[in-house]
């Protein structure tokens, strides 16, 4: 079975801090593939190319609402609709690890792949005029110069709550496969048959049920530890026998 690297994002844990966004931007704007353009970064109408964005939704009706922070990047579909439409072959899916990549030197900037992606995961670089998207930090995860623990995408390294898991979803024993299996992992817009490799873990209700024996020790029926040690009247108290 071939490898399919992917992210699993736990919406129950994500706090919407955008650390994954900024670390992604920092790593990917500094790589040998060139910068990620920004326009007016400090102006009134800032815009730029990002591989990853965190959106926020409010679910439910007041007062029963929940805030869902939703990190959104390329899902590295198993059947990516953006790849076959590319006229130059610049957009491709790697056989060895399933990462969907763009060859910036072949891309003609026709934007057809962006039209063909239902998730809006691709963004054109307005200055380099080529299509860009999440690479799963392909220039990081195989880097032999990094300690093994750091051979992960920048967003995964940055997440303070460990809401982002990274691994091979085709390996049933990997941390991501386990998470998908055991925490109800799901894919986005399954109706299009794109089979996204990235999965999301749903929000979970966090409740705590207190049983009576947790309030009152069941192995202490006489409540011995509840009785205060009390001296008999006339018995010297501690204050009488010692000086502080």
């Amino acid at each position, binding site marked *: 079975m071939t490898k399919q690297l992917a992210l699993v994002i736990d919406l129950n844990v994500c706090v919407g801090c955008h650390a994954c*966004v900024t670390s992604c931007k920092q790593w990917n704007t500094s790589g040998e593939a060139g910068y990620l353009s920004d326009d*007016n970064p400090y102006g009134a*109408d*800032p*815009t*730029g*190319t*990002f591989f990853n*964005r*965190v*959106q*926020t*939704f*409010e*679910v*439910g*009706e007041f007062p029963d609402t929940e*805030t*869902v922070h*939703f990190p*959104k990047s390329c899902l590295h579909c198993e059947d990516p*609709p953006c*790849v*076959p*439409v*590319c*006229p*130059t*072959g*610049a957009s491709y899916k790697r056989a060895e690890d399933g990462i969907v990549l763009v060859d910036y030197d*072949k*891309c*003609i*900037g*026709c*934007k*057809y792949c*962006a*039209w*063909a*992606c*239902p*998730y*809006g995961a*691709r*963004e*054109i670089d*307005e200055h*380099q*005029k*080529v299509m860009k998207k999440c690479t799963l930090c392909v220039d990081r995860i195989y880097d032999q110069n990094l300690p093994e623990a750091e051979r992960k995408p920048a967003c995964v390294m940055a997440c303070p709550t460990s809401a982002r898991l990274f691994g091979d979803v085709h390996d049933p024993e990997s941390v991501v496969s386990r998470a998908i299996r055991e925490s109800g992992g*799901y*894919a*986005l*817009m399954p*109706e*299009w048959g794109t089979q996204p490799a990235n999965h*999301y873990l*749903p*929000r979970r209700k966090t409740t705590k049920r207190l049983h009576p024996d947790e309030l009152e020790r069941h192995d202490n029926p006489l409540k011995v530890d509840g009785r205060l040690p009390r001296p008999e009247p006339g018995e010297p108290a501690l204050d009488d026998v010692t000086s502080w």
Partner: protein
Amino acid sequence: MKPAWSVIFFTTLAGAGQGLFLALVAAEALGEVPAGFLVSGALLALGLLAVGLAASFFHLGHPERAWRSAAMWRTSWLSREVIVLPAFMAAVAAFGLSHFFSFERNHSLWIGSAGAVLCIALFVCTGMIYACLPFLQEWRTPLTVVNFIAFGCASGATAAAALAAWQHPPLARPYAAAALALGALAYLTRLAALARNRQLRPKSTLSTAIGVKHPKIVQIAHGAAGGSFNTREFFHGRPREVVRAVRWTFLALVFPVPAALLGGGADSAAVLGAAFAAQYAGLLAERWYFFAEAKHPQNLYYQAIA
């Protein structure tokens, strides 16, 4: 979707050029036509295609790499179009030259037939670029390809009628009649597409987009302080009234107005030329609406703009 002007000009100009070429080949196949008319017709068709091709280059971020786009013809309709277009233009040029140098009728007819096959192939490639995307439900219909062919043939026949009125008047009437028939057909298929798209229910919802099964979801932030490629490329950004006005404009200009001019009985080049101009303006509006009408599922992630 945001209407892409380069593509709007390309599809309408190339479509008219293709229709004009088919009109020339049909006339030659059906009877004797003076070579001069066919040569100027081929020149005009080639001119329309060349201007359309030039317009299409403005769509590209890296036009100097356009040659690469012939690579993936096995999977990409865009790549197929890139191969068929120059082949068709060469056939149109060969057709014109065969009449300019007075080839045998047999030979020029062979060139014309080969060109006609390439012409239809080009129509199919252009239409399938849009019709092959499964989640752009407004485009995902055979009617998309049918409309590209029908409107291309109709506008080409109108152009042929105008050219004939100027260069070879006996053909102006038959061409005008053909333009009327093809225009009516195109109008009907376009109305059918409009009716179909009105019935569409979007397959994707905000619920499937983020995977939260709750009927009430409100977006609070879309992840960028200003705009992004996602907020620019997939929204036409015009009020509903403008879109509606464009629809009524194209419904008037694309057939009723040119039909009145074509069927009015006046065979002057000016009147028929005006019919073509009106129809072409209508086609620009039609293609604009074609883009604006398509709702990309990624827009679900940008509720504030949608």
